[in-house]
């Protein structure tokens, strides 16, 4: 096979007002025709900058040196006009966010057709025929109807399929896929990967696949290049790199899979929180007279958590798992009984709940959204103390904040800083400290690791585990990430469309799933049973 794309000593430097920053340093790799190369790295490793440089789509303030040869032609030296012909025609690209990569005001047929008009001068009926053919190829059901849909009428997976159809319209020789499945549910992710594979065989195109998810790489790519701090630290055939990693960083990435299990809580520990027939519904349309319309997010769920236990709630987006968690903590209105230590809390109002709040705490998913940007870390962490321990003075609160920061392994000297100065993992630690300072008994963890890099995830999980052991905490752990749930939970509840599909111990769910949906989830997440 001949070389299609050769990146030779590529360096990219951004001239920022604060000084030059080199995002990519001396990166070299090649992709042969029809082959898949995965560019792997954690956030900030320069993998997206590399691929954007190959398309010459970097902003003006970026200085690029080295060579990017596509079929022998150095793309860094060609005219902008020539580059426009290459883009879309020879090289095309799909992005991470299917929700925002399509123009919401145009029908999808028109958006795909536009590429064909530009590069193939294909108009009128021939254009429409080709679009229909493409939609069919990417597996959009009823293409004749869907061609006139607007993006908002399609699901995330379908939108990503439309993006792929757009990228394939001119039968490119190289497809750059920048985290194409990161924003999708695991089962959808598996379908999209399958689709890309079959289309690759059909069109004979090469794929530059950018991802942070190593489990995808193993199943998808022929070659892999691992990037860190803008440099390629290791590259080679996928299997060789995976089986025999030479660089420490690669080894660390491969090891960054949450391992181990939780020690089970004593079987006789009392039930801390239980819910019976919990229902949550949101009004869709309110009518003055007649029936209002509702969306039922949670449709009657029973559960109970014993002290010291971790209940993992697993489900894809829209399954109602976060809604259930918020309802149990009375952050949302719900129907049904919720009992906390034998006391019915479902009827309590805001002030009735207030004394309980310090015992029921929560850590949210988004480390960038869950901390107020205008408060210092110390103020954020101590806010709960002002509510629940008004008798404390400044000095006492400060001492508590220092202890809480030390507990989550952050430097207490950072307490007067603002959240925007911290990384994602550090912010999540701050959020944990905010919850812990009140000495809660139950902690609702709503996807606390989903927005973090793998290696950071593992450390946050270790921290959560240690804290649970140390303080005898009870966790309600909500996640779509099965490997994380397996590492942390005693019991697992699989949810879909507001209902419980399957409920059982970790071993039962992961090793002997009964329901087809659970099996599909496990398969799509590339989770092998631990015996293997």
């Amino acid at each position, binding site marked *: 096979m001949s070389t299609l794309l050769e990146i030779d000593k590529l360096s990219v430097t951004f001239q920022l007002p604060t000084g030059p920053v080199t995002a990519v340093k001396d990166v070299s790799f090649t992709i042969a025709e029809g082959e898949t190369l995965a560019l792997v790295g954690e956030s900030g490793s320069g993998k997206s900058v590399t691929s954007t440089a190959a398309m010459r789509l970097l902003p003006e303030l970026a200085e690029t040196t080295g060579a990017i040869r596509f079929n022998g032609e150095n793309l860094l030296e060609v005219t902008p006009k020539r580059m426009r012909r290459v883009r879309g025609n020879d090289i095309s690209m799909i992005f991470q966010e299917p929700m925002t990569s399509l123009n919401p005001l145009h029908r999808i047929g028109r958006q795909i057709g536009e590429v064909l008009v530009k590069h193939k001068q294909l108009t009128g009926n021939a254009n429409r025929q080709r679009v229909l053919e493409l939609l069919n190829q990417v597996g959009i059901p009823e293409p004749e109807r869907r061609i006139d849909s607007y993006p908002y009428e399609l699901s995330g997976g379908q939108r990503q399929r439309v993006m792929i159809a757009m990228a394939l319209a001119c039968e490119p020789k190289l497809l750059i896929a920048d985290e194409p499945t990161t924003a999708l549910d695991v089962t959808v992710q598996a379908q999209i990967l399958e689709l890309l594979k079959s289309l690759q065989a059909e069109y004979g195109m090469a794929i530059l696949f950018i991802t942070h998810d190593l489990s995808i790489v193993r199943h998808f790519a022929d070659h892999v290049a691992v990037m860190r701090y803008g440099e390629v630290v290791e590259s080679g055939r996928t299997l060789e790199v995976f089986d025999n990693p030479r660089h420490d960083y690669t080894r660390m990435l491969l090891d960054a899979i949450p391992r181990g299990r939780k020690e089970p809580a004593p079987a006789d520990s009392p039930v801390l929180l239980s819910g019976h027939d919990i229902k949550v519904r949101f009004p869709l349309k309110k009518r003055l007279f007649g029936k209002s319309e509702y969306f039922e997010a949670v449709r009657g769920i029973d559960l109970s958590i014993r002290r010291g236990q971790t209940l993992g709630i697993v489900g894809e987006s829209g399954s109602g798992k976060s809604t259930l968690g918020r309802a149990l903590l009375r952050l949302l209105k719900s129907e049904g009984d919720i009992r906390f230590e034998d006391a019915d809390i479902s009827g309590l109002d805001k002030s009735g709940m207030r004394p309980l709040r310090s015992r029921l705490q929560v850590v949210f998913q988004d480390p960038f959204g869950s901390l107020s940007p205008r408060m210092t870390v110390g103020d954020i962490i101590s806010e709960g103390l002002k509510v629940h321990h008004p008798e404390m003075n400044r000095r006492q609160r400060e001492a508590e904040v220092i202890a809480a920061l030390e507990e989550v392994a952050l430097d207490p000297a950072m307490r007067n800083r603002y959240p925007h100065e911290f*990384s994602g993992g550090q912010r999540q630690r701050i959020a944990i400290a905010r919850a812990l300072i009140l000495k809660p008994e139950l902690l609702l963890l709503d996807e606390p690791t989903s927005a973090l890099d793998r290696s950071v995830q593992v450390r946050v999980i270790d921290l959560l585990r240690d804290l649970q052991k140390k303080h005898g905490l009870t966790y309600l752990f909500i996640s779509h990430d099965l490997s994380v749930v397996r590492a942390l939970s005693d019991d697992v509840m699989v949810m879909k469309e507001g209902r419980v599909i399957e409920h059982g111990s970790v071993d039962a769910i992961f090793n002997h799933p009964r329901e087809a949906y659970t099996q599909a989830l496990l398969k799509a997440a590339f989770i092998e049973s631990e015996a293997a």
Partner: protein
Amino acid sequence: MTSESKPYSGKQPDGTPLPAGGPNPPRSPDPETPGTKEGAPVGESLARDAWRRLSQNRAAMASLGLLLAIIVVCIVGPWLLPWGLAEVDWNAFGTGPTLEGAHYLGTDANGRDLLTRVLYGGRVSLSVALVASFVSLVIGVLYGAISGYLGGRVDNYMMRFVDIMYSLPFMFLVILLMVVFGRNIFLIYAAIGAVEWLDMARIVRGQTLALKRREFIEAAHALGVRDTKIVTRHLIPNAIGPVIIYVTLTVPKVILLESFLSFLGLGVQEPLTSWGVLISEGVDMMESAPWMLLVPSFFLAATLFCLNFLGDGLRDALDPRTR
């Protein structure tokens, strides 16, 4: 302290070593960091960050300087000038700018010193602007934040009230106030303030609606923080960026509104004056004594220019996307 993951700053996407004072600060107390206490370096607050970026904006800084100069001159100037507000120079009726008799910018048709009157007028115009903007700021922010935060039916009623206020003709309101209470400068403050807070309330309500879905508000609920504290401690500080910008746009609007009212004869009363009144008088004498129009117009235009540049600068400095 951990070394996990790279900092979220966007400035360091690669592995270049972090500058001291970045997310991994030195453990030892930094004696040069202002406000250092007990070994905890104070982070760069958003306000200070915004100020740093504003100070790099030359147009905004020049505007700020000129604006402060105008304010100081308006306050101090009348004491230094030999002529009083209503003092008539019987030797100079409608003379142009001259050093004779210390009429540096000329006199009006009644022989009163124009510079003195412009500076007195500036006091009125600027104070109306300041008071009316402040009134609209306080009412608007509180009203908007409460309406947006409570949501549902309360929000509905509160915003319908705003709609009703919008639909009242402003001139009608002012004339009504004048008829009932007589002409009084405080009525102008009140009338303008009563109208200007409506826009502010809408802006803050929109911000609040977006903010109250954010997770840090939810976290505050989970901590059991009271609603009043959530509004004052979490919502308003985070909505303040657009508010500050809107205030700098309200100030020129208010000055123009007062000029408009005075122009129509509903504003301040003789001998007191304002920039709007002076311009109105100047228009009548435009052909025979152009300086009577040009001088107050220059002061008004310069002030509005500065405020608009300053507002633009503040918007850029506070916009998180430029951060």
